[in-house]
């Protein structure tokens, strides 16, 4: 597909109504479901009418596309990511109904609208509002909502095929292996389903997860979630490479939206089951940084660990940020300027059989831990056509990367991301066809 560009806000008449009775039960009274009044508070429309000039905040990415939005979409500034477990007792039909409800609500929110028939403030006075309302008056803010299916959806830990889809699980969709140094916390790992909500306004991203989790009550519950406050990747050549919490630019050779061939080859699934064609695999890793130790590390070592200079992000072999690193170039004592254990060397596609991933990570700071240290790091998200690509690169990093001294992986999850959704259908429908 071609690079996405922000579209002017257009009301989407397909997406406002259409929540199932069940979905609406959690939102408004059953008695008024299906009245189909349509647009409950068109926030995007209001914002666009009052805005003098388009800004990133007014970007609108359509939900119904060939591929799900939120992958090659230029990375927004904020993230709210949630992994869900399907509740006991939910049937195959119940799961499908949930996905239908999520689809309708996601499309409405992506368009900058409240969810439901009445939205946040226009409904029956004696019913709870359908939409939680904290995004009232805010534009769509480039919101994208991306859904994924975890391995346990196909077969849970007890070996049960709850939804009759075990046979359709791709071989690659399995738990990631234990990597050297992994200190994974079960409460931050795994999940039957995931939702990645990205937006340029944190309140809009949080609004999305909050309403989608509300819709799911009784059918699925949040297993873990993660807020990200600053993107660490650029997925478009129009974006500057941001810095991670170590203060470095990393991942400058990320796949960009302007490289559709690279996305075709490295991001979208081509050789998998038909239901996943045009989809991808999402790897999520919560990478804790030992910030305090890093901050007192001498600059010489900081730059040697990354293999880049801190100021510009140029490889230590010279040039500027986007100069290809010269791993053979040696300096004093014939040692390479970019050391054998430098992160840029070990992560570079040329050292990983050409493997490239589309990275879409975010910085996080979740307060402090019991020892008073910042609970901070990188919430790593990557999209790839095969999760084995991630495994190969991560194994190489986990074994040798000098950065390991300053990080630890504490959360891990893998999800199959189905392709985009057609109008009138629901996300992942081909899996249940």
């Amino acid at each position, binding site marked *: 597909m071609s690079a996405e560009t922000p579209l002017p806000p257009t009301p989407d008449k397909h997406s406002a109504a259409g929540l199932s009775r069940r979905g609406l039960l959690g939102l408004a009274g059953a008695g008024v479901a299906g009245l189909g009044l349509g647009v409950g508070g068109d926030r995007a429309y209001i914002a666009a009418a009052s805005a003098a000039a388009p800004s990133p905040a007014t970007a609108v990415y359509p939900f119904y596309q060939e591929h799900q939005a939120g992958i090659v979409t230029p990375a927004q500034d904020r993230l709210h990511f949630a992994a869900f477990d399907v509740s006991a007792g939910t049937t195959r039909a119940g799961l499908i109904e949930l996905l239908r409800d999520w689809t309708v609500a996601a499309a409405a929110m992506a368009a900058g609208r409240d969810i439901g028939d009445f939205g946040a403030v226009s409904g029956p006075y004696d019913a709870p509002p359908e939409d939680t309302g904290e995004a009232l008056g805010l534009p769509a803010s480039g919101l994208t909502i991306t859904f994924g299916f975890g391995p346990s959806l196909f077969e849970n830990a007890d070996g049960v095929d709850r939804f009759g889809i075990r046979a359709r699980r791709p071989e690659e969709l399995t738990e990631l*292996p*234990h*990597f*050297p*140094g*992994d*200190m994974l916390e079960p409460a931050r790992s795994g999940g039957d389903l995931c939702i990645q909500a990205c937006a340029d306004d944190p309140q809009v991203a949080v609004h999305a997860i909050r309403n989608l989790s509300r819709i799911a009550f009784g059918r699925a519950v949040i297993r873990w979630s993660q807020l990200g406050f600053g993107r660490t990747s650029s997925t478009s050549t129009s974006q500057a490479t941001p810095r991670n919490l170590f203060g470095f630019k990393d991942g400058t050779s990320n796949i960009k939206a302007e490289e559709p061939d690279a996305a075709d080859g490295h991001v979208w699934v081509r050789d998998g089951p038909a239901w996943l064609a045009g989809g991808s695999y999402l790897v999520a890793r919560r990478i804790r940084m*030992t910030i*305090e*130790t890093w901050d*007192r*590390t*001498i600059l*010489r*070592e900081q730059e*040697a*660990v990354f293999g880049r*200079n801190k*100021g510009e992000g*140029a*490889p*230590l*072999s*010279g*040039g*500027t940020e986007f*100069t290809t690193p010269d791993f053979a*170039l*040696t*300096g*004093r*004592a014939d*040692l390479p*300027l970019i*050391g054998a*254990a430098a992160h840029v060397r070990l992560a570079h596609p040329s050292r990983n059989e050409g493997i490239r991933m589309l990275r879409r990570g975010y910085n996080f700071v979740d307060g402090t831990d*019991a*020892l*008073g*240290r910042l609970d901070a790091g990188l919430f790593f998200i990557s999209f790839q056509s095969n999760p084995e690509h991630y495994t190969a690169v991560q*194994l190489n990093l*986990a*074994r040798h990367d*000098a950065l*390991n*001294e300053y990080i630890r992986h504490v959360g891990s999850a893998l999800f199959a991301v189905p392709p985009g959704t057609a109008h009138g259908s629901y996300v992942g429908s081909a899996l249940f066809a």
Partner: protein
Amino acid sequence: MRARLLPLTAVSAFGLFALTGCVANAPADSAGASLTVDSSTDGCTVSAGEAPAGNLSFSITNSGDQVTEFYLLADDGLRIVGEAENIGPGLTRDLVVQLAEGQYVTACKPGMTGDGIGKAGFTVTASAQVVAVDEDLEAQIETANVNYASYVRDQVAQLVTGTDTFAAAYSAGDFDTARGVYASTRSHWERVETVAESFGDLDPQLDLREADLEDGQDWTGWHAIEKDLWPADAEAGFAAYPTEERQRLAGLLVQDTATLNEKVQTLSFTLSQQTNGAIGLLDEVATGKVTGEEEFWSHTDLWDFQANIDGAAVLYAGVRDILVDKDADLADSLDAEFAALQTLLDAQRVGDGFTLYTDLSAAEIKALADQVNALGEPLNQLTASLVL
């Protein structure tokens, strides 16, 4: 532990030579002159030919197409006063030095071979800031090096003796004896951990934690045996090792420790390796010991904690006389923070050992962690204060 890779490798190519007549870590209230240097294919242009004594910052841009170096030499044109090496094409690196009044020479070395090009005189004029020049510095540094190398050999020799006892008891099934000498023997390792870690495969073979393994990797060394000796916290279904496995692990432990002993016989340390070694040991405390991750089954983390601090204190003591001349305030601060940390550790002494990590209260762990940070901040200034 996972290896801290850089101090003994990437940082090994400099150290001794860059000292006489210059000091980094200039006090913040004495910002000095800033100069730029253009190191091109055939030139070495400094933005000014003179500057006042005190802190000087040279911002060196490599506009050529080869890796370059910049040198600030004494007036004999030979003795190195300051240098910035390994500057890739197109990159800019800053060199911060403290210079006394006198005549110097600047030069660049594109391609990093030959005598250097663009040699030019550089005059440092008198100023209100007095910079002392210590002529005895190189002798002091050499003494520190010799003493530390000797300390490392002594600790590893004691490690060999302790390991032999431990391994013999373990493979003979005398687990009480093995448990009794486990922590005290490992202290010798932990005191020189940053040195031991610098030998490629030896560190993972001897000190890998279970979480550091990859699927299918053979697990050997201290922690593999630790789990077998303290199985109480092991996962459900953990089976004690068969006798042959115990003998194999014990044999490898003895063999790898003997190899380590051979390797440390000829070691020599630059000043930066010593200061960065102290920093590395404290980082080990901050990331592994204060969190109770290192001794996951024996919970003897405080023994390792004390040993890491012992090693860092020895490294600091070796360079303290040099530091007192250059930055007495930093020396005072380090003396106080080391003492405060030792007071906290002494409060946990039980017999000739320590409280088990699992018996520490959350407040006690927090106090230790806070003091590690309090010591870490000044300690990490040490390299810049002593070495350029």
